[in-house]
């Protein structure tokens, strides 16, 4: 696959930022730090890629954080109470995620509601349910409980590479093929670019939009399990807060247009990496962590501005 100009400039930016941080604070390159950052990239990357599918279809999914909270609580509870084996619990959570996506897609594509409204309601509803389900208590594993296979699978490391990152890369490759190499991917871009023209080309636009939400929420469910096992205890009122914004930010940084029809998987991956490197930078350079969001917001704004200036010049 050819790397686009956009993705290339993002890659260069990551390398430049990384180099600068490494020079100022060599701890950036320590195995522990790299491994931790890689883990976070894996965790956040899965649902960022998920978000990209919906954004390319011309929609938006705001309930990502709440889904992560609700499904995370559910998973931990099912497993900790021993109701279900971890494998079955995972399948249940995955199925629930897909079901939520189906509902969102149906409301958007069939009923004709605006994606922003549908998923904003989802954000409120799932968060509420998660809190009600645990009676606002923190969900976690009882003291001494241990699920070695599950823990090794989702939180283990292979030669120091966190499994979350490996899962993310696998998902990325599969989703990259789906998006860039399959008929479905073409249809998704076409619907995002111009739903009318797509319909007139014989594309079942309703089905394409619905499946984008199913893919998004299904992948988010997978991310929910990884994140739940990473934090191990989940307070339902704050777990996953603002994660949808991380996902949107990564997608936009990676070249997705909120108008739909544009974006690449590689871009989203690089966007996720850049965001995590920035977080790391805030920590390592001793910038007050309260400024975290401000740094992130500024970088995204500058990135989008630079991109717009670039494309303006290209059109002329």
């Amino acid at each position, binding site marked *: 696959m050819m790397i686009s100009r956009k993705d290339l400039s993002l890659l260069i930016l990551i390398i430049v930022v990384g180099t600068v941080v490494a020079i100022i604070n060599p701890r950036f390159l320590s195995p522990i730090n790299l491994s931790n950052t890689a883990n976070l990239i894996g965790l956040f990357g899965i649902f960022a890629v998920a978000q990209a599918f919906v954004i390319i279809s011309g929609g938006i999914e705001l309930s990502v954080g709440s889904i992560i909270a609700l499904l995370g609580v559910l998973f931990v509870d099912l497993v900790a109470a021993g109701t279900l084996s971890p494998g079955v619990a995972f399948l249940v959570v995955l199925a629930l995620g897909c079901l939520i996506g189906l509902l969102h897609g149906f409301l958007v594509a069939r009923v004709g509601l605006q994606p922003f409204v549908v998923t904003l309601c989802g954000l409120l509803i799932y968060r509420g349910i998660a809190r009600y389900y645990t009676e606002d208590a923190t969900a976690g594993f009882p003291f001494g409980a241990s699920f070695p296979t599950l823990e090794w699978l989702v939180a283990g490391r292979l030669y120091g590479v966190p499994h979350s990152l490996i899962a993310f890369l696998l998902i990325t490759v599969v989703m990259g*093929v789906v998006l860039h*190499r*399959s*008929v479905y*991917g*073409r*249809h998704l*871009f*076409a619907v995002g*670019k*111009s739903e*009318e*023209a*797509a*319909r*007139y*080309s*014989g*594309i*079942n636009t309703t089905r394409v939009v619905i499946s984008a939400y199913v893919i998004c929420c299904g992948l988010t469910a997978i991310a929910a399990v990884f994140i739940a096992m990473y934090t191990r205890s989940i307070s339902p009122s704050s777990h996953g807060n603002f994660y949808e914004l991380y996902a949107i930010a990564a997608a936009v940084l990676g070249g997705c247009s909120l108008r739909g*029809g*544009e974006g690449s998987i590689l871009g989203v991956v690089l966007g996720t990496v850049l965001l995590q490197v920035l977080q790391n930078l805030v920590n390592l350079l001793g910038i007050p962590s309260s400024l975290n969001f401000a740094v992130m917001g500024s970088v995204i704004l500058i990135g989008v501005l630079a991109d717009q200036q670039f494309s303006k010049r290209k059109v002329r």
Partner: protein
Amino acid sequence: MTAAGPPLLRGTGLAKTYGNLVALDDTDFVVNAGEVRALIGSNGAGKSTLIKILTGAVTPTRGSVEISGEIAPLGDPSEMIRRGVACIYQHSNLAPAMSALDNIYLGRQPTRRFGFVDTRRQRLQAEELLAHHGIDIDLDARVGTLSTVKQKEVEILKALALEARVILMDEPTGWLAGADVVRLHNTIRTLKARGVGIVYISHVLDEIFAVCDTVTIMRDGRVVAESAVADIDRPRVVHLMVGEKLARESADAALKQRRPRGTGAVRLSARGLGKSGVFADVSFDLHAGEIFCLTGLIGSRRTELVRTLFGSDRFDTGTLEIDGRAVAPRTPLDGMSLGIGFVPEDRHREGLMLDMNVTENLAMATLERHCRGPLLSRSGMVRAGRRAIDDLSVQPRDGSKMVRLLSGGNQQKVLVGKWLSRGPRILILDEPTVGVDVGAKAEIYAILRREREQGAAILIVSSDLEEVMTVADRIGVMVSGRLVAVHDAGSVGMADIVREIGGGSA
């Protein structure tokens, strides 16, 4: 009727060229106070270019415009509006969710201190305007709930509130029923009595004879005749519009190639098709190997009709048979599986992905064919694209070019090519050459004739009579949602068609 002093509007030596294409050639145009001047000519005659120059949307290559004797700066829409030239377009430019009153003053409400809208003053001014011009409108009604003719009146009021002295009306009755046309004409007469100059652009000759004082006839980018309406008759007008030589030539050329009813096999057969409130009782056969043109006024529901054949809309009465089998396509996908290809009217919104490249657009309706297993074969797409580009001579010959950057004619070739790649048995094209230059038009006609020779059944919706007379084997005329006549193209003249098209008030 001509007032003393300089005319309200005078264009002198106006010309506009686009590259080698001469859209308008040394045209003089005058509108006096209290005059209703008809501006007529077939598509591509230069009417819209002239109008665009007068509204400031286009800067002419040569020439000047005077308004009440003062030279006006060209190519500046807001300056033209300030000087009193307003244009009412075919499609409404109103905000449907706002009241008539707010629409009339949209963008320049009278304000009080701190920028609050002075609603009282706004209403007083509007009522004064209504009384002065004798127009009756409920100012508080939401524009979207008003009938089309009342919306037109709101647009006229909006122009008058701007103190417009010349109002250009582009096909003002295109969407109106008979009684509403009369109402609009009465409004025009009232305006005329108040000294407003009006330019009335229409294809409906009846209306021109009913309401206009003078007529300017254009052809091939020039004014070919100017006359008082009282001094001219219909055959003469049609004759001037079409141009004798051209009419004879295109008729001769087409005659040699005409094949009414094609090979004889009926491919699509409609019986009593109807859609409540839209069109009714439409029956016709479309044969393999023929080109059937549906013509009529804008708003005669031809587009709505053909959309139901393809499945992007549904008919509710009657039967449709394709290859002898009763069908009722419900989605474009249904239409496609019945072997129908559809080139929609609005190629930018419904036809093409402007921000995708030529290859991707060409393959959009045939992606399944470019698959190897579950994966798309890009090289297959590129090969097919290259073939189509050569075949249709798309310029530039570059499949990676964004469709947005192509000329209208080449965009249309890409859109036609997208459907031809499916090898459609029935090809429906809605206004296939609007915004297409003369050269590309000829190429598109050649492509369609070639498809016809290969046995495709082709149905074209066109308002361009010259086009209809050139490519059609048979011609159907629609008036207000009914198919009123079907002719063999060889045995009917353009004048007859023109008469039938305007049949609403005849």
